[in-house]
């Protein structure tokens, strides 16, 4: 079954934030940014801006009626700078004008005086200076320190992975309206409506009930609108609250890139020990996370790095420590994978390091150490319904790993100036918010008297197809046609206290809540049918809108029953609550059972490097993935393809560049490149593993949003393999992304440039 939204998308009829018809009297907002990455904020002078035509008001921190604070986990982030500025692009003031042009033209006329302070951009330097956002965390199992002595081989190294711009094509924005009750109604492009509501209420000094947030859909999120949609919602609301006029705030692309946080760059140390049979005995890793200027979601991202520090391998002795480092960059935030990919990159680097030094194939070590049923993760949850080996073996067999290896080797024998590389990337990703309390959701289902159904949940549609899946759950549970179901906008007045659409768990949590609500309605209606038709309730079903008694059509249909229910004064509305069972986690011991289940898979990646130019192509990515019993294979396939390509982008051409002053140099689409049509692999095969799914997954259909991103990591190692085929002595560092620059300089490490004999002796 297809994704339901594209029927409107292709006609341009889907409404995004900037498409909402504008109310008369709307003011347009533009954000004054800090010009420096760190300093004392001496003065903000808006007098010249206020003289500009069309400018109505300039709002400063002092104008905030409530609390100037939007930090989600740690209260360390003002909405508008006050006293100090901590990153370039930090909001300092809000200009409101009669037109968007007037608002933007006025920005240059607001004077911001900053007395500069030293700028930190390197997480290791920040850690050395004690600049940590939260105390460090350590996950430990066994005794790694004691285990080294028993290892036949021990290797150490450093691995670094870069940040990643979300590049949702729809930029951040919000549209706020004053309400007659003295509150605000906000249309927001956010993954977390409740976060916008809660922080806006604090900022305005209102109860949460006075702030309504509504979300129809996002033009992409990927984590970038989980917490970081909040400032724009709160700023627009602040403007509307203070002026009593509607206020619209939409960031332009370059402002969005400057002002918002991204995937966290990490710099990490690893140490790995193996026995003579290449079984991993011990692993230690220290992660330095570049958190940016405020905590945002960094502590949670850091935690997930630790949860996934061993990827899909069983290691009896692990010590993994992580530091969340405060730097003068925009606060880094959620991005598909949420710290997991960063942790996996390090363990994969450790395995590649060991393999290269031992002169064995990395796959030898990987395959021998895959998780098996009952193996403990470092946080003590056992691997249950584990498909790690099944995924690997299926991929290796189906896509003929030995033949791929032979082909690559033969190609490299035959070609001097082109080299191919091959890597296998197995993944294991835990599904649930690691903050246990967030694993709850509600669904409000109304059946109207004509038999049509409206479903409201906390899920935000951002392309992942969650509305389609929720509609399927409702239709399947009620036994009626999909055409009768409408999934409503996400609104804080209909479904309150929601968790953000994140952690791959949105369909599970909201789908389960929808299922519960629909089951309750179904039961109520069938009990009525049982009474009205004098039939035994136990044998009653609805299928295709027909009431069945013991499998045979009874004299009633969905429409008749719904109508009867109304006249019999039976409630046709249901509000259901779902909380994932069995979860617990103790953040003091870092032990527990944090995940509902794990998702497994394995990808083979083949690349070809042009060894004259340092350019490359990703030729094939072949994946065996654990979907469980997919409720919507088409939607799920799209998630795998899209996630994989996003991961390839992170590992190859997406390079975030800040200078030492904390200024973003990759500040536009011409300087920051995401994959285009021609950069995706010609072959991207996805095999649906035969797995039973998990009872804690909605209709046993496993979560699919984040896991595929990590298949992209294979591309880095395939490129590394190809570079080493050209230059076996390469001392190439474990540093992603593997840009064409990194490839070329590692192909020709001896090149010295001007003034000396160009030493490209290989030629």
């Amino acid at each position, binding site marked *: 079954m*297809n*994704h339901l*939204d*594209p*029927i409107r*998308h*292709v*006609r*341009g*009829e889907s*409404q*995004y934030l900037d498409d909402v018809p504008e109310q008369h009297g709307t003011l347009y907002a533009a954000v004054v940014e800090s010009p420096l990455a760190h300093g004392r904020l001496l003065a903000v002078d808006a007098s010249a801006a206020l003289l500009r035509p069309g400018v109505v008001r300039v709002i400063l921190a002092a104008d905030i009626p409530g609390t100037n604070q939007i930090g989600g986990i740690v209260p360390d982030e003002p909405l508008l700078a006050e006293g100090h500025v901590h990153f370039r692009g930090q909001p300092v003031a809000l200009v409101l004008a009669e037109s968007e*042009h007037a608002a933007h033209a006025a920005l240059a006329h607001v004077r911001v005086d900053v007395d500069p302070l030293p700028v930190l951009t390197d997480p290791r330097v920040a850690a050395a200076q004690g600049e940590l956002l939260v105390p460090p965390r350590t996950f430990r199992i066994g005794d790694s320190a004691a285990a080294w002595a028993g290892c036949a081989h021990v290797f150490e190294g450093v691995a670094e992975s870069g940040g990643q711009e*979300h590049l*949702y*094509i*729809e*930029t951040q924005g919000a549209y706020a309206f004053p309400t007659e009750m003295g509150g605000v109604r906000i249309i927001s492009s956010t993954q977390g409506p409740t976060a916008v509501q809660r922080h806006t209420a604090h900022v305005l000094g209102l109860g949460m009930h006075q702030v309504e947030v509504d979300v129809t859909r996002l*033009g*992409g999120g*990927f984590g970038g609108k989980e917490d970081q949609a909040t400032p724009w919602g709160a700023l627009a609301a602040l403007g509307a609250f203070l002026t009593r006029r509607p206020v619209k705030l939409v960031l332009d*692309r370059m402002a969005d890139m400057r002002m918002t946080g991204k995937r966290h760059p990490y710099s990490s140390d690893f140490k790995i020990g193996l026995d003579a049979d290449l079984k991993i005995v011990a692993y230690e890793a220290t992660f330095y996370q570049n958190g940016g200027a405020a905590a945002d979601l960094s502590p949670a991202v850091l935690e997930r790095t630790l949860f996934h520090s061993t990827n899909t391998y069983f290691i009896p002795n692990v010590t993994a420590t992580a530091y969340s480092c405060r730097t003068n960059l925009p606060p880094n935030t959620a991005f598909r994978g949420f710290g997991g990919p960063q942790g996996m990159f390090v363990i994969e680097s450790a395995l590649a390091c060991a393999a290269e030094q031992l002169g064995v194939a990395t796959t030898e070590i990987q395959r021998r150490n895959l998780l098996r049923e009952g193996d403990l993760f470092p946080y003590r949850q056992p691997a249950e319904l584990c498909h790690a080996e099944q995924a690997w073996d299926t991929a290796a067999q189906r896509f003929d790993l030995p033949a791929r290896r032979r082909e690559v080797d033969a190609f490299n024998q035959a070609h*001097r100036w082109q080299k191919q590389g091959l890597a296998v990337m197995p993944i294991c990703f835990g599904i649930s918010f690691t903050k246990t309390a967030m694993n709850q959701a509600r669904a409000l289902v109304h059946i109207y008297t004509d038999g049509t159904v409206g479903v409201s949940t906390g899920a935000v549609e951002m*392309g992942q197809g969650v509305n389609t899946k929720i509609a399927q759950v409702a239709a399947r549970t009620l036994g009626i046609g999909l055409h009768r179901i409408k999934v409503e906008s996400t609104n804080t007045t209909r479904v309150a206290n929601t968790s953000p659409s994140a952690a791959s768990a949105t369909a599970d949590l909201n789908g389960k809540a929808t299922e519960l609500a629909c089951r309750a309605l179904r039961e109520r209606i069938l009990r009525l049918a049982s009474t009205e038709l004098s039939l035994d309730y136990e044998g009653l079903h609805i299928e295709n809108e027909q009431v069945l008694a013991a499998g045979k059509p009874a004299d009633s249909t969905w429409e008749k029953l719904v109508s009867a229910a109304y006249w019999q004064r039976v409630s046709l509305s249901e509000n259901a609550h779902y909380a994932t069972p069995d979860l617990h986690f103790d953040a003091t011991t870092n032990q527990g059972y944090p995940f509902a289940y794990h998702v497994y898979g394995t990808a083979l990646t083949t690349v070809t490097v042009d060894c*004259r*130019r*340092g*350019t490359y192509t990703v030729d094939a990515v072949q994946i065996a993935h654990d979907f469980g019993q997919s409720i919507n294979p088409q*939607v799920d396939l*799209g998630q795998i*393809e*899209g996630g994989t*390509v*996003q991961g390839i982008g992170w590992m190859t051409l997406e*390079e975030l*560049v800040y200078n030492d002053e904390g200024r973003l*140099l990759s500040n*536009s*689409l*011409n*300087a920051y*490149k995401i*994959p*285009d*049509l*021609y*950069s*995706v692999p010609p072959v*991207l095969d996805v095999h649906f593993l035969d797995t039973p799914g998990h009872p804690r997954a909605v209709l046993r259909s496993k979560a699919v949003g984040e896991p595929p991103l990590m298949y992209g990591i294979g591309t880095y190692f395939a490129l590394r393999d190809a570079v080493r085929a050209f230059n076996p002595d390469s001392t190439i560092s474990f540093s992603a992304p593997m840009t*064409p*620059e990194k490839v*070329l*300089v590692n192909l020709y490490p001896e*090149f010295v*440039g*001007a*003034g000396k*004999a*160009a030493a*490209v002796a290989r030629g």
Partner: protein
Amino acid sequence: MLQFYLNDQLIRTDQPAGSTLLDFVRYNQHLKGTKIGCREGDCGACTVLVGELPAGEAVVRYQSMTSCLTPLGNAHGKHVVTVEGINAARGTLTPVQQAIVQENGSQCGFCTVGFVMSLTGHALSARPSTPTSVLASMDGNICRCTGYKSLERAAAHLHEQLTARPATEAVGWLADQQFVPAYFAAMPARLQALRDAATAATTGGSEATIPTAAPVAKPLDAPAAARARILGGGTDLLVQQPEHVRAIPVELVFDQTQLRGIRRDGDVIRLGAATTAQQLLESEVMLAVVPALPRFLKLVSSTPIRQMGTVAGNFINASPIGDLTIMFLALGAEIELEDAAGQRRALPLADLYLGYKQLAKTADEQVTEIRFPAPAAASDHFNFEKVSKRTHLDIASVNTAAWLRLEDGVVRAARLSAGGVGPVPMLLPRAAAALVGQPLSTETLRRAQEVAQQEISPIGDVRGTAHYKRLLLHQLLEAHFVELGLLTD
């Protein structure tokens, strides 16, 4: 007053000629299907079709353009098509839309309309569809959700359907198949009527041919001309200073017929200054002298941007890594400049660049023509190399072109150009000189590579470190020799 058709509506507007078509469509006409992604022509979410009726022809030629960089003035006399202009009755989809829905080629949907328009433009193209061309039609569209595989599948379906498209009367067939609404058939007559009315208004009905020039192209006095910004395709100016361009009078050159056209004049190839990259690509004259041009131009921007950006605009933008500039430097091009008084002079392209974004021309001088000696098929060799972070639709880290004249295995003349290795797009005269009179050999190449290192002064920036750019130029000079078959592996 600008006049053009937007979908099936005649538009008459006094909006500034230098404002963007995107803003007009979204905020003046409230057609919200066209989305804003980046406002710099890099994402394609705002793609629309712009149809032009060539003088004396009966078929409207549609091209995809990013409306964020299209000056509104360049719509004058044309047919602008947004998604609202191709949508069929509610509840039905065009074959393009159907293919995308069927293959799940849309997730969040924000980029989707851009893909729909690009593929519809492909359906309307005069050239037969090929599996390659249908993909190329969406090479200016970025999608962050799908990973493109589903869009590739949709494009493949579409190509299948388009194999049945007749070579002539294609619009009728396309309307029958519901690719476009029936009103498309009436557009040639409507555009002709628009043109006839303009002709009647300005000439009193004489037979003089009036180009589809924008009305603001009326003669300006010299000081006004100096102040006016000459606006070609808009692909650089509307990225760099949209607010400024919107606020000033602009002189539009994109549709001036005297500035278009590519012809061979003896041993000289002449290009009108407003020639677009796409016109280069489609020129028999150019393909005859530079047969590998399609391969080179595929590395230059995207399909919509190639249909908008002009060759002279690329020169005058003076980017140190302008791809077309680098090619034409090695081709030995010179430009003709004309000032407001009509005085003309010729200037070698290499002499145009004085320093970073500093030009050897006065403010009122405008490029009118570009010319270069036609490479001789028997003896001359030309190659272009470009490496960027992303192979397509990206700005080069380093680009370079080489023109070599060979006789009996000896280099008789040479021009080497390089971009990204200094403040201006530059020739490497000493490296070229190191080749001249030498036999083709690895040693000759090595000497030129060494000399080139002395001629360049790259700086580190977001496109790479200085060290990388040095290494890259070194490698790309070698690549020229290999690509030209002058050096065996």
